Each structure stands twice: as structure tokens, then as C-alpha cells.
């Protein structure tokens, strides 16, 4: 599917249930970055981070959503991504942010990798209470 550029102040919500939604979410993010005139590299960094966050939702929580919006710093603009789920949550957040840690036998690079792709990273999670990851990428 092709993502259509939205008005700059609009929030885009993408329901995340399947691997198809992962692709949809990252395409929406990329088109938002393009409307803000991000460089192709920054647009790709953003799309890659969204892909990882959306996959974590499918893999660990099965259901959740990704919200994308344009943020106005002064003087810069940026994109904020909120990835939210009501899944099992992360018991040890500090550990999950360390390279090489994974509970699913995967690479374990998910969250530390996302952190490095983006300018700002916040996570709120507790066991059995879901996970919310908020990341921002600013236009240089």
C-alpha cells in the first residue's frame, strides 16, 4: 500500500496486528518525514526505527498501535512516534536497553538499536501492564 502524505498537523494512527501493518506504519512514517523535507537518510532511519517498534508489538504483545505526529520545536520540526501496547510489558527495562539482551531468542538489538537511530527515546513499561515507547527524530 502507498502512504499518502497527510496535513502537517495531523496525527496518524496505525493499528498494529500483523507483519503487513509493520510495513504500513513505516511507510506512513517515511511519507511524514518526506513532507517535512527530511534527508533520505533521516527518513530511512525513522522508517527503520518504526519497523523495529512495530515488530516488537506484533512479536510480544500481538496488538497495539503506532501514532505518528509532526512536532514543532523552535526552530526545528520533527516527527514523534509513540508505539503503545497492552502486552506483557518488560520486567527489567534497564536490561532490555542493553545490547545483546533478548527474551525471544532474537538478536536482542531492538531497543538499543532504535535508541541509536533516533534523537530522543523514552520508554514506560511494567510487567503485565504494557509498553509505551516514545521516540523523536528532529530535522537538523
Amino acid at each position, binding site marked *: 500500500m502507498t502512504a499518502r502524505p497527510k496535513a502537517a498537523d495531523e496525527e496518524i494512527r496505525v493499528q498494529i496486528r500483523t*507483519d503487513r501493518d509493520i510495513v504500513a506504519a513505516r511507510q506512513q512514517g517515511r511519507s511524514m518525514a518526506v513532507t517535512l523535507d527530511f534527508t533520505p537518510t533521516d527518513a530511512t532511519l525513522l522508517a527503520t526505527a518504526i519497523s523495529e517498534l512495530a515488530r516488537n508489538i506484533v512479536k510480544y504483545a500481538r496488538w497495539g498501535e503506532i501514532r505518528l505526529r509532526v512536532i514543532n520545536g523552535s526552530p526545528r520540526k520533527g516527527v514523534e512516534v509513540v508505539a503503545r501496547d497492552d502486552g506483557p510489558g518488560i520486567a527489567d527495562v534497564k536490561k532490555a536497553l542493553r545490547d545483546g539482551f533478548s527474551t525471544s531468542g*532474537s*538478536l536482542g538489538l531492538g531497543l538499543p538499536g532504535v535508541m541509536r537511530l533516533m534523537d530522543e527515546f523514552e520508554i514506560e513499561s511494567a510487567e503485565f501492564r504494557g509498553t509505551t515507547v516514545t521516540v523523536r527524530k528532529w530535522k537538523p
Partner: protein
Amino acid sequence: MDIPILKQGQVVIATIRGSPTDAELLQLRAALIQQVVRLRSTGVVLDVAALDVMDSFATRTLRDLAQMTRLRGAETVIVGIQPEVAFAMVQMGLTLEQVPTALDLEEGLAYLARRPQPFA
């Protein structure tokens, strides 16, 4: 997603178009291995120039593909990784490890042709 798989001599060639889902990447991996076995190929060239994002899943799937074909005696070369995709991979800390890469299809085929042929 329909990913055409071509054959050129002993080499299998596939080109990814657009944005494959995780399931489609796994299907591609299975189809390529099947072709390698069926055609007794000695090499695979996978063109990823159109791939928008190479995240941890895509990287792992391609690495596994290379490992699996190598066990069948066929080397897999990944070609066409876009500069911004390469940049994102490095930032993420993702690596294709010992999987060879080349600039484009032509370079990938040249790489495979340069390899010593064990039974030639």
C-alpha cells in the same frame, strides 16, 4: 508479492521489489533455497536495491538464507544495498557477518565467477 527468480548458468538471481512483509521475506528465502536445490546452483545473487528498510528481521533472514545455501554448496551475494539503508544498519549495529555483498547485479555475478571452482 511476486518475486521473480531467474537462472543464469549455475547462478540463481532474485530481485526484491517494494516493501516485503516478514512473511514474504520468509517465502522468498524458502523459494530461493528450493531453487538452489532443484537447479544444483553454485551461487545466488539477491538484489535488494528496492528494499526501503533493512531492519533486524530482514538482516537475520538474509543471513540465514546465505547460511542455508552455503550448506548446499552455493554462495549467496547480497547486492544493491542503498547508502541510506547501509547507514541505518550500521547505526543499529546490524551486520550481515560473513555474507558477501556487491554494488549491483553485475558485480555480484562477477564476484561469484571469480570464486575458485572446486570441481572445475
